[in-house]
């Protein structure tokens, strides 16, 4: 299908994009350069994946190509040759003519890339209007063709819809349609699937690949997930702290990485296979959820009927002491609702939540408060889950103090907790904003552990983290769970991650539990179509199968 460019003879065919020694200083940053001496080529019809953790300078490189750097960052040296023209030396007007027309861009967050007050058909048409192409009725026809090209159903109706009516995946398709409207020769995609579900991500990746092959575009694909890289890349460039440390053919970099940083990143990718672990699991369930029902009712007005949305319907499962149960599903599957119901952050509409022999569902908040200590939660967003006005010491001791412990005593224990989660004791006096995402999530874990709970609910607790940081936090969770014998309910959209941590997995789909059993069974011999679809959608499956023997050895 796609013609692979032959790089051994690339000397006689000029690449589409040639970046040479790109250096952008970072005034007032933690390192002198945002990117330093970065050089790479992208040929026509080729997908180059730029991989790195957040802060590695991959988005800065893309911004420099588009001429969209924040104004305190100015490239100091180097050149960006696009079709033989150095983009760094072009004026803003000359750049405008190229931006969108010859270089298209897809962003991470499809909602913020779309104008919420404009119908999507008009937004796509606007791209053409700005550049004065496809005049007259041809423009409307092109809009329909584009919507069709990105695989949206019924373009004739859909073009009149506002962005808020679309799902995340559909929005990202619209953004792609906008980027492709003028058939750019180069497409820059900055983490285009990070905000999406696994199955949607697989579809979008397939879409980008299909269109790229059909139009013969060069694609610069920025991501931090090596699973995605394995699915889509022709060539790979790995960036660490603003320096390009390794680049080469996809198979070479994936199967025999040379740079230690690349190896480190690859090792951090969850394997997506159940890992059997020796954990003593008692037979009596610590938590038994029976026929849990939760519906959301939007309040109706005089002219508006009430809308009833079932979020969780008739779900039952058990968690034993020391066991980790994974609840896996896409967004909207009701998995987070279950987590909130378990902690009584939300009332339920039916069923029982039996915790250590007692049904906690009918208890009032005040009656349940003394028991809260035993049921803790690790939240999703490490930036929103810590009070920005409190020191870490305060955050860690508030729980024990609420339980009647003296502040000084709690503080002493907070010190040992920080040690347990791998943070220095000096963290106690510092505020959350002084820490990175991974460190903050460790504080969140320490806060849950401070109360010595029997059960911890972790709601998407590693989803917001980079893959390598995610691996560290997962390792920490696994280790703590093993050492302290805490039961864990691990809510995630990522089967790979669930497989890494959990002995048993429950798969949720549209509020119902579709499959429930030991991890190895669910992943290896799933009975349900939906589970198999989720497994199919895990990024980097083929590569994963390849590397499995190596990592097992």
């Amino acid at each position, binding site marked *: 299908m796609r013609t692979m460019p032959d790089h051994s003879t690339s000397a006689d065919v000029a690449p589409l994009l040639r970046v040479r020694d790109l250096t952008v200083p970072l005034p007032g940053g933690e390192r002198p350069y945002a990117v330093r001496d970065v050089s790479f080529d992208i040929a026509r019809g080729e997908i180059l994946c730029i991989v790195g953790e957040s802060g590695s300078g991959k988005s800065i490189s893309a911004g420099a190509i588009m001429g969209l750097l924040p104004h*305190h960052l100015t490239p100091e040296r180097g050149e960006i040759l696009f079709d033989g023209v150095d983009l760094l030396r072009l004026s803003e007007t000359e750049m405008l003519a190229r931006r969108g027309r010859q270089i298209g861009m897809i962003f991470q967050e499809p909602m913020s890339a779309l104008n919420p007050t404009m119908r999507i058909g008009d937004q796509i048409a606007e791209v053409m209007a700005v550049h004065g192409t496809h005049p007259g009725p041809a423009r409307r026809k092109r809009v329909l063709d584009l919507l069709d090209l990105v695989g949206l159903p019924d373009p004739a109706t859909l073009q009149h819809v506002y962005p808020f009516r679309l799902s995340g995946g559909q929005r990202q398709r619209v953004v792609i349609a906008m980027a492709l409207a003028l058939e750019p020769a180069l497409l820059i995609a900055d983490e285009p699937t990070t905000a999406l579900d696994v199955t949607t991500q697989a579809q979008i990746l397939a879409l980008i690949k299909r269109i790229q092959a059909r139009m013969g575009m060069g694609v610069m694909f920025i991501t931090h997930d090596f699973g995605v890289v394995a699915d889509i890349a022709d060539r790979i460039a790995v960036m660490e702290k603003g320096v390009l440390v390794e680049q080469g053919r996809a198979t070479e970099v994936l199967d025999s990485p040379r740079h230690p940083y690349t190896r480190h990143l690859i090792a951090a990718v969850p394997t997506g296979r159940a890992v059997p672990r020796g954990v003593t699991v008692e037979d009596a369930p610590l938590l038994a959820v029976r026929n849990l029902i939760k519906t959301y009712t939007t309040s109706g007005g005089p002219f508006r009927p009430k809308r009833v949305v079932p979020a969780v319907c008739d779900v039952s499962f058990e968690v034993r002491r020391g066991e980790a149960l994974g609840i896996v599903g896409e967004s909207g599957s009701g998995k987070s609702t279950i987590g909130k119901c378990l*902690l009584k*952050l939300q009332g339920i509409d039916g069923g029982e939540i039996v915790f250590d022999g007692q049904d906690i569902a009918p208890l009032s*908040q005040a009656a349940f*408060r*003394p028991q*809260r*200590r035993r*049921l*803790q*939660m690790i*939240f*999703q*967003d490490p930036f*929103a*889950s*810590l*009070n*920005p*006005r*409190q020191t870490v010491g305060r955050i860690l001791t*508030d*729980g024990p103090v*609420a*339980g009647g412990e003296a502040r000084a005593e709690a503080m002493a224990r907070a010190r040992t907790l920080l040690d347990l989660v791998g943070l220095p004791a000096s963290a106690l006096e510092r505020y959350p904003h002084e820490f990175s995402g991974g460190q903050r999530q460790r504080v*969140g874990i320490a*806060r849950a552990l*401070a*109360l010595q709970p029997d059960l911890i609910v972790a709601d998407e607790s590693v989803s917001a983290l980079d893959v390598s940081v995610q691996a560290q936090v997962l390792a920490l969770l696994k280790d703590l769970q093993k050492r302290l014998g805490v039961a864990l309910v691990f809510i995630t959209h990522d089967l790979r991650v669930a497989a890494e941590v959990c002995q048993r997995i429950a798969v949720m789909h549209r509020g119902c539990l579709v499959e429930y059993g030991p991890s190895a069974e669910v992943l290896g011999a799933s009975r349900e179509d939906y589970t198999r679809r989720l497994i199919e959608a895990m990024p980097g499956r083929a590569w994963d199968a390849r590397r499995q023997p190596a990592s097992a050895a």
Partner: protein
Amino acid sequence: MSGFARRFLRNTGAVAGLMILAAILVVALAAPLLFPDSPWMMVADPLILPFQDGQYPFGTDMLGRDIGAGLAYGARVSLMIGAVSTAVAVLAGIAIGAAAGYHGGWVDDLLMRVTEFFQTIPQLAMAVVLVAILTPSIGSIVAAIAIVSWPPVARLVRGEFLTLREREFVQAAVVIGQHPGRIMLTQILPNAMSPIIITASLMVATAILTESALSFLGLGDRNMMSWGFMIGASRTMLREAPWMSLMPGVAILLTVLAINLIGEGLNDALNPQLRHRGED
């Protein structure tokens, strides 16, 4: 120096406001030293023009009272009433808004209907009625101004609490078993303080204006000299001795302007989103 102080001091308007207010405050505090006699006392010939007599640089009124003394003692009343009534209004507003925003449901409905009831009545008209009923005194004036000015604070605090209540760190506080009262005080309120401080600073200015209006209408405290009273008393002499109204008028203008400038400065310094205005 903290980032807040640096951002505030970069705003020239705010610094100017702070200096004006500081000057007024010094005069107010030093009034008994500068003018040992009561401002009600007739000390000289009536209607001395300003800047004529060295001993009475601001002139005298129709009864021979020193306008300068009136201004200084009036500053004490204005600033004190502005500060105290705002403090009372803000405390009430926080309590009502926090309860409504945190608990939601029928508590919210009830408290917000009450708030709206107060908001439907024109502020000054209600203040006049309240002072008239309670008989004019410093306490009734403070109470009246506080009663008419808490609703905006309550609505603001409710809005802040509604959004902050859903934040993960508040849920985390629920999960670790903190008491709702504690969550409101230690988790949510500190994060809602910036807009409250900004609103409060601007409310002080409004309170001073309201107090002046009340005194102008003759509803001021009889024992205390106030700027509003001075304007009210001299309105009959507006053609013959315009300075008698002008002096306290300028004093009100400067004070309110200074406080508004400070409020603006606080707003810019506390709201990170607007920071680009003063920074590169």
